[in-house]
């Protein structure tokens, strides 16, 4: 499995990088000693320099690899997106800490350049659910609002529990959850002569992803509200449920409800 091998590969790579040059040294010295003395003295020095540079670059590459893995553990290269409509908007760029510092914020399609894990983090940074759920409005009272590093640690913990429970790459679980909880149809309101009607409309690819991310984030806030569950545990539970198409998942419930209303209003 790729998720476990991420850290193992790095260690194995380091050992291999150190082990490889040693046999070369022994073999390289012998012909130099046996060969002609004149004009050959420059060669071993050059070879030694080459070996040094090779060793240094190998070390640097390994360090760079370990740094670029998500949270130092998970690689995003093996993650596949099955849904072609979401594939254009799910960005899987390698980053240790997914934070773009809001650099592209004011551009038109800025969401098409932001890492998918960062988008989940951004959706979790909110003051509450913003609507009544179970007769109450849930407020986080500024505990999460604007605190990106704090939420990043929440997502990191959630990914660890997902990895422990399922043995899969948690980013792959997140992508599967998004694919399963993205709705197809939506409704809008129109008004004819003082009476409101609902009309079914389609949803663009960008908005499908937005809705799915929002519902995943909301469900973890609801799950952790007034319970012993931590926010990370609630998020991990929801991710696993949604990835398995479990109808008890909040995000999938919402999706089914939206589509049912839209189907009746065609």
């Amino acid at each position, binding site marked *: *499995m*790729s998720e476990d091998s991420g850290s193992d590969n790095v260690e194995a790579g380091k050992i291999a990088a150190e082990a490889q040059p040693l046999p070369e040294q022994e073999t390289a010295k012998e012909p130099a000693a046996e060969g002609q003395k004149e004009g050959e003295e420059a060669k071993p020095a050059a070879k030694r320099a080459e070996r040094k540079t090779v060793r240094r670059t190998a070390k640097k590459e390994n360090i760079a690899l370990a740094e670029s893995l998500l949270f130092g553990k998970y690689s995003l290269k*093996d*993650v*596949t997106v*099955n*849904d*072609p*409509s979401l*594939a*254009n908007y799910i960005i899987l760029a390698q980053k240790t800490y997914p934070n773009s510092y809001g650099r592209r914020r004011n551009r038109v*399609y800025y969401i098409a350049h932001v890492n998918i894990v960062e988008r989940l983090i951004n959706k979790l940074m909110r003051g509450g659910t913003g609507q009544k759920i179970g007769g109450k409005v849930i407020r986080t009272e500024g505990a999460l609002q604007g605190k990106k590093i704090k939420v990043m640690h929440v997502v990191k913990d959630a990914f660890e529990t997902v990895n422990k429970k399922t043995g*899969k*790459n948690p980013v*792959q679980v997140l992508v*599967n959850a998004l694919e399963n909880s993205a709705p*197809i*149809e*939506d409704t*809008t*309101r*129109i*008004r004819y002569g003082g009476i409101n009607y609902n*009309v*079914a*409309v*389609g*949803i*663009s*690819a*960008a*908005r*499908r992803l*937005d809705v799915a991310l929002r519902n995943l984030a909301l469900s973890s806030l609801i799950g952790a509200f007034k319970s012993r569950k931590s926010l990370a545990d609630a998020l991990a539970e929801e991710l696993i449920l949604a990835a398995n*198409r479990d109808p008890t998942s909040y995000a999938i419930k919402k999706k089914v409800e939206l*589509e049912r209303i*839209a*189907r009746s209003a*065609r």
Partner: protein
Amino acid sequence: MAEEQPRQFDGYLAEIVEIQPRKTGMFGSIIQAMCKVLEGKDKGRVIRRNLSGKAKVGDMIRLGDTSREDKPINIK
């Protein structure tokens, strides 16, 4: 990690060919797009659809049914 899940019905794939410049809807939040159907019975047909959210030419969407064609939503 290329595990293929058994997928349920998730609509027919369609590609956006053209976006009409005029916006519709009560608050101007709906756009109209010409979509080319890539799957199912009506494969290859180009139909006009109302969409919510941002979209651009070349995006892929999923349609619940491909038999009907949407009218522009007129506001009076």
